[in-house]
């Protein structure tokens, strides 16, 4: 036997009660009551970088690698690696990218997902490189919102303690 959980009309209160005791009753505007509980949900996902592996291994060696279309008539260069060319579909090969570029567009995030919340406000930038056909999305550090502009010169910094994640690289103003 268990006593009936307390009843609330605000969902926020229901959530607080569940944090406290694991169960609550919600009464909606029509007076209908529902029992509310919690289902925990957590997954540890084992991820294979597969054809992107050389990119993430490259970051751990301080190298920024992109993809170049193998078709002689195309040769499109991608800053974000692509196993196949998005212009013509042909397979690509690895190329070293420049580590300096310019801001093509940017934003400052004042809110983020769980992993980034403690870093807010943080900057995101789309970086363009000479001789490269597409952009790279990066975090831009050592600059505040009012410093940022389209066309700003930036350079890459590699994490000395790489974790095989895109966060192993970020950019800073190239002063």
């Amino acid at each position, binding site marked *: 036997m268990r006593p009936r959980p307390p009843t609330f009309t605000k969902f926020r209160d229901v959530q607080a009660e569940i944090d406290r005791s694991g169960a609550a009753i919600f009464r909606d505007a029509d007076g209908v009551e529902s029992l509310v509980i919690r289902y925990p*949900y957590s997954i540890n996902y084992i*991820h294979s970088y597969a054809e992107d592996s050389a990119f993430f291994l490259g970051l751990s060696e301080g190298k920024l690698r992109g993809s170049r279309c193998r078709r002689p008539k195309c040769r499109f260069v991608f800053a974000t690696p692509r196993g196949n060319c998005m212009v013509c579909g042909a397979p690509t090969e690895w190329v070293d990218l420049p580590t300096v570029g310019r801001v*093509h*567009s940017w*934003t400052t*995030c004042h809110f983020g*997902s*769980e992993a980034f919340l403690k870093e807010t406000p943080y900057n995101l930038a*789309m970086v363009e490189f000479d001789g490269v056909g597409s952009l790279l999305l990066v975090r831009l550090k050592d600059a505040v919102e009012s410093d940022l502009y389209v066309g700003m010169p930036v350079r890459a910094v590699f994490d000395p303690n790489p974790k095989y994640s895109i966060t192993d690289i970020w950019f800073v103003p190239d002063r």
Partner: protein
Amino acid sequence: MREAWVIGAASNRFGKMPETGREAATRVALEAIRQSGLEPKDIGYTFVSNCFGLTEKQGHVGPLINGGLGIPEVPSCTIESACSSSSAALHEAFVHVAGGFTDAALVVGVEKLSHLDTLTATSYFAEAADYAFETKNGATFPGLYATLANAYQKAYPMAPEVLGSVAIKNHANAARNPHAQFQKEISMDTYLRSPMIASPLRLYDCCPFSDGAAAVVVAAKEFVRHPVTEPLVIRASARSGSITEMQDRPDLLGLPATRTAAEKAFRQAGMEPKEIDFLEVHDCFTIAELFALEDLGFLPRGTAGRAEVEGVTARDGKLPVNPSGGLKAKGHPVSATGASQVVEIFEQFNGLAKGREVPRTETALAHNVGATGGSCSVHIFSRR
């Protein structure tokens, strides 16, 4: 191909729903069917969208919904296309009905997110982006659209009040829509004082996280002998895609998938933008409404902001846009959004949009985007 009609469309109030996704979906489906004059047993196929159903630990919801409708033997499947899921489901229903495979099909979109906090929901939503290169780098949807907004702003400079005018208009429309999450008007002052989420996008530039459910019944003209509602004739049901990662696109001044979907839709319908009376467009962020107007071909590139400020897109303007309040203020329960745009058009055509009527309702267009434009649906409707 047979002529296909929308003969019923229903939605609950967006915001927070206490019931589970499948219960809410069953409820709106029953309402849409009742309104259409059909019986559940007339439904030949159920197309369900429920992107984030797994956050409720519930997959395979189609048979659960059909069970609740008393038609467990009817086939169903789930259609996923991020924020454009239920317009993709509508497209499938159209293909089945117009192609003669089914006489009547049910489209149901539902999302329940209020059991997640904003942080968890933000993390889940970001997974519709490229996980290894965008999400893991801190990209959120407001952040990605903010990057588009800054690129557009560089090419076509605009004052903050321009985006603000989109938010104010959509909140004013939602204030008159009983299905809307935010039934309140906002002022420019409120807009300008709202906190920055991802610059230049403020709180009031963003759609909220929403629960909601919407359903649409599509039937063949020859199957509906005596329509009890004013049907929407589906003149075009077009979908398109584009490179989903913005960093690989040729430019950031709009959404290429909207351009190609609109071209297909207008060709299918044999119509031009100037023949459309009003629009429901995908304004997940205010900047996206400007993109929609330009990419759909209603306004030249770089001019949508001025049109918004001048009131062209107001409910009584020359081209009413989002009389429902749009995703911005009606709410954006991801998988219910596409179907709910059709609910608004249905209510406008049937004189049910009390207090928010648009002047002309002979034709309408619905535009629904998946994520940052990897997918797009455009539907064009007219009266019989």
